[in-house]
């Protein structure tokens, strides 16, 4: 069953919080993974791996570089569920 955008944001925030130690409410759509959340490339790939697992989608490596913000990732995952 497809997840709604807000469910994806909530799930993604849990993954990011687990990986970084940030509170889940710091992980909001407009935040940049690198500039605001200080997530390096290895951590980003870890988050992608967990997100693929959680939402049953595939996020190709070529797409990851386009996911600048949390909102970008939510949007991509939402579209990829179909």
């Amino acid at each position, binding site marked *: 069953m497809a997840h709604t955008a807000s469910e994806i944001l909530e799930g993604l925030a849990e993954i990011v919080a*687990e*990986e*970084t*130690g940030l509170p889940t409410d710091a992980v909001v759509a407009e935040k940049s993974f690198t500039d605001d959340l200080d997530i390096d490339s*290895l951590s980003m*790939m*870890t988050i992608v*791996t967990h997100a*693929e*697992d959680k939402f049953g989608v595939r996020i190709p490596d070529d797409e990851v570089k386009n996911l600048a913000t949390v909102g970008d990732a939510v949007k991509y995952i939402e579209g990829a569920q179909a």
Partner: protein
Amino acid sequence: MTAAASRDVVVTGLGATTPLGGDVPSTWSAALAGESGARTMDNDWAEKYGIPVTFAATIKVKPEDVLPRPEIKRMDPSTQYAMIAAREAWQDAGAPEVDGERLGAVVSSGIGGIWTTLDGWDTLRERGARRVLPMTVPMLMPNSPVAYVSLEFGAQAGAHSLVSACASGAEAIGYGIDMIRAGRADVVVCGGTEATIHPMPIAAFAASRTLSLRNDDPAGASRPYDVDRDGFVIGEGAAVVVLESAEHAAARNARVYARLAGVGLSSDAYHITSPDPDGKGQVAAMRRALADADATGADVVHVNAHATSTKVGDLTETRSIRSLLGADADHVQLSATKSMTGHLLGGAGALETLFTVKAVHERLAPPTINVVNPDPELQVPLVRDTPSALPDGDVVAINNSFGFGGHNVALAVANA
């Protein structure tokens, strides 16, 4: 200050997380009280895999209760233990202000990140390559503990992990001493760690018939020098010491526990697992440590034995001590602290050096428990059941650590 004194190395900080306690005070007081850290394991490995050993000296305080969640996720347990011990040691040393280029780190593990290695393999087989986590390599590499320790404190003089099986922790401290003496660093954070209580290595140690099978009495299983000893008890944890040049410590008025006065290294070149029965390599390591410390057998009051509770190894070591010290062995108080902690493998040499430093500082040799019937071939006076006072004045104590592969490390500890 004399030339010799200028290269003196002192211990100014201690940290540990062990089967006896989550820090040094709790570990040391449990050791003095003669407590055992061995317990029945809370898992189904015996039924599931047919593993013949159902107990181990597991860590007393789980890292999950101490470290923030992201560190648990990105560090192998061997690194988690090292970080807990290193942070305690650093605070205990008064968080010294030192230029990063003059600060070194040497932390070893005998086996490395085996939980991460085997979890990664399980994930690959069960779920495919895309599910293997990107942090797997930096977590499993055996230099991961020292790498994180160097990051934690900004140690830029060098970060090293020397590997010599169960001698690794002592060898790390020996290398730290050399770094200070060679002028490469003023302060070095060094120690050893291990997290190997996983079914595969336990099955492998059991296959080599080196583990105690005393499942009905875990606390009584590690019994070095008792006639009924039947193998070692696998343990886990880490110990870290902060070493400092005597000058650097004096300049900042640091509290000094003891001097690390001598390093003795040798290798048997005899057999991949068995010690040379003549103890030639063990004797050479101890002799070199004493010579390096400008000490003689007359100065030695205490030895923390490697003594793992195996039939052959325990006696080889006491013969070596007697052979080196002769009549001076009569005034040695021998302690086998693995009777309480189990065998921390790559962490053992560091934890036992820490115990030796505490013994010299407090003039108190920790006990050896479970010796109901001492082996008649034991050749050195043994501290049994309760701690024993060490003499006043200038004294030297030795920590012995030996590893599969024929590695022998002896460290000489002298009072400050």
